[in-house]
């Protein structure tokens, strides 16, 4: 055995270990910049802090979310009489003398610790009126703790862990339906497939990344599966930052599951699709808990290998058929960024509008007044670009009780089309998904 001379081996090894741990927590940083310019110095400003993963592995998603929030700020701060949206008619926050909303961004790099320190910074140094964020449920969890401690309203538009509202926080509000609701939706969907005779008694596999988001989804799906009497043959949690997922896919194959219920972020979603193909795994369906699968990066990375998956969604562009407002807002977004809105964008967009509407009704930036106004929120469905029955918060949990999900499928040309509920569907579902060797 050949060895090059070396010195201080133990010290080096230990030092390396310490630094690797540091490495794991240390992404590259970027300077957060205020997203809107606060040039209207004569008018009062209302600062809202938006904490998203602007860099790091979830950076793509963070930028998307930020764009959604920015578009909403644009609509609130200017006059759009044609748009039937909250806060579109007047200029700025009309009840606060037309005050403009100024966004202050925070970058949490998908790290719960950073989310916490960013929340701390935005509240104590930037003196924000309210906070928004943080996408990753684990980060939302820590950042909203800071808001709770400081008595600052925290509006969460995009984290779906059921445990977030189980805390019954005073200052935490969530507009998006949570994974309990979505998991339940899955099984109503499967029941509907049974009624259509597309499936009889499918074997299910539950596959999820092992941070808060994935594990909560896994639990919710297991509960719903039991309630609806479905057979789970495999339950796999995997590390969120894997280089390869060969063994996970082997486990899936070994289980003989027909339908995979999957919860992944973008990088792992891409990795899984490639590995499914490499190992020729052909389930009838992959039923994804959105996140990575509806991320802008997903199809860019997976290409055609990413087609035909089903995903629960909060939103889809083809909802425009039933709601013209969707088309109008999407056009504004597309003119600016050259791409269509996604579920992530539309949820963040809606979140900011809800917050602005509440601050406006409160007529004050005092936290208690905003909190009271949020509790009194009642936005009808026709003022939303979401497929919800409206927005109304549960007085105790502060969860929007009028939210509901849809199921989309990626079909030809990589379009996400609504396939369920049947009455909102814009295209027929493709079932089962084509086998790998039958795809071109």
């Amino acid at each position, binding site marked *: 055995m050949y*060895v090059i001379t070396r010195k201080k081996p133990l010290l080096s090894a230990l030092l390396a270990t310490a630094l690797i741990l540091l490495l794991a927590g240390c992404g590259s940083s970027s300077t957060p910049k205020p997203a809107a310019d606060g040039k209207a110095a004569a008018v009062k400003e209302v600062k809202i802090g938006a904490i998203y993963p602007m860099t790091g592995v979830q950076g793509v998603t963070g930028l998307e979310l930020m764009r959604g929030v920015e578009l909403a700020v644009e609509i609130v701060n200017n006059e759009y009489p044609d748009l039937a949206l909250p806060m579109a008619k007047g200029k700025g926050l009309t009840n606060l003398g037309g005050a403009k909303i100024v966004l202050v961004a925070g970058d949490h790099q998908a790290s719960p610790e950073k989310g916490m320190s960013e929340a701390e910074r935005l509240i104590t140094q930037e003196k924000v009126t309210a906070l928004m964020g943080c996408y990753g449920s684990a980060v939302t969890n820590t950042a909203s703790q800071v808001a709770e401690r400081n008595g600052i309203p925290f509006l969460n538009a995009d984290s779906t862990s059921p445990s977030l509202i189980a805390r019954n926080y005073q200052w935490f509000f969530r507009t998006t339906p949570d994974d309990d609701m979505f998991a339940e939706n899955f099984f109503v969907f499967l029941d509907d497939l049974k009624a259509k005779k597309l499936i009889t008694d499918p074997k299910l596999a539950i596959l999820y990344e092992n941070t808060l988001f994935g594990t909560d989804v896994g639990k919710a799906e297991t509960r719903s599966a039991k309630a609806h009497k479905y057979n789970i043959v495999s339950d796999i949690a995997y590390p969120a930052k894997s280089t390869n997922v060969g063994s996970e896919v082997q486990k899936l194959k070994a289980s003989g599951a027909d339908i995979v219920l999957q919860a992944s972020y973008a990088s792992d979603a891409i990795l899984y699709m490639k590995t499914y193909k490499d190992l020729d795994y052909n389930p009838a369906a992959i039923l994804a808990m959105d996140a990575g699968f509806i991320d802008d990066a997903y199809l860019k990375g997976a290409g055609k290998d990413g087609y035909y998956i089903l995903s629960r969604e909060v939103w889809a562009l083809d909802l425009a058929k039933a709601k013209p407002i969707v088309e109008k807002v999407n056009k504004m977004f597309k003119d600016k960024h050259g791409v269509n809105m996604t579920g992530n964008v539309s949820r963040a967009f809606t979140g900011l509008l809800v917050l602005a509407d509440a601050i406006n009704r409160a007529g004050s930036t005092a936290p208690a007044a905003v909190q009271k106004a949020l509790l009194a929120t009642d936005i009808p469905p026709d003022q939303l670009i979401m497929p919800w029955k409206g927005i109304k918060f549960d007085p105790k949990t502060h969860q929007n009780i009028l939210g509901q999900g849809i199921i989309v499928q990626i079909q030809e040309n990589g379009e996400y089309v609504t396939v369920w509920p049947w009455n909102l569907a814009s295209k027929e579902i493709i079932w089962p998904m084509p086998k790998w060797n039958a795809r071109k």
Partner: protein
Amino acid sequence: MSFDIMLGQTIVTGLLWGAIYTLTALGLTVIYGIVNIVNFAHGDFLMISMFLAYVLSIAVGFSPLQSLPFVVAALFLLGIVTYRLLIKPVLNAPMLAQIFATFGLMVFLRGLAQFIFGIDFRTIPTALQATRLDIGGIFISTPQLIAAIGAVVMFAAVYFFITKTRTGWALLAVAENREAATLMGIDSNKMFALAWGIGAACVGVAGCLLANFYYVFPEVGAIFGFLTFIVVAFGGFGSITGAFAAGLIIGLIEALAGFLLDPSYKYSIVFTVYLLVVIFRPKGLLGSA
């Protein structure tokens, strides 16, 4: 499908990934073995080489394999430039200063890639990507097989170069005793620069082979860099054969632990094995004290 085939597939997958780990580890261990500096920017060298392959594919339509010679040459230069500008000044500085130098380089390179390319995931579409072999029900993806073969060839080449050529002996002499080697007329600076060049060139090969089937994004170095350090420490810092064996073993442990036990513990098991090695054999599998 039978359990045997499943297990066979898992072992094959593990070994194929292990080969990739060995290749990223090779460069790191060469640099450490000769210059005695741990390059924390190593994973980001990998990222740079993948992006170079990506740029070449966009600009002139090269597949990553066609880009390989150019990327390797570029990385060789990058290694030498890094040595001249960054490492040489801290060569005799305390270890902490050396670590901060390469750590800073890591942050810089990652930021630079993010600045130029944004944070999207990119893939380089090639005809090879979709192909695979089917051997008795065990699938081997062709680009991964090519990567594994490339790893073995690269290992043999570097091993041969260092142990069988005059320049290689000079490298070893400098590693053994810098002062004595200088007295014998060997330019230690040149040798250190060469070691950095070779180390970076190894990652150039790894990057091209990896870009053939893996997506490219600014954080990719973090994901692979992490396992690379484990592999190098496991195999023994500076040990070339150790890095080879350790890479394959880590790949296997990862795959088998994921398949036979629980995927969410696969890295914990890799870590446990690593810690046991560090505790009971601090010099690593094949390192010498």
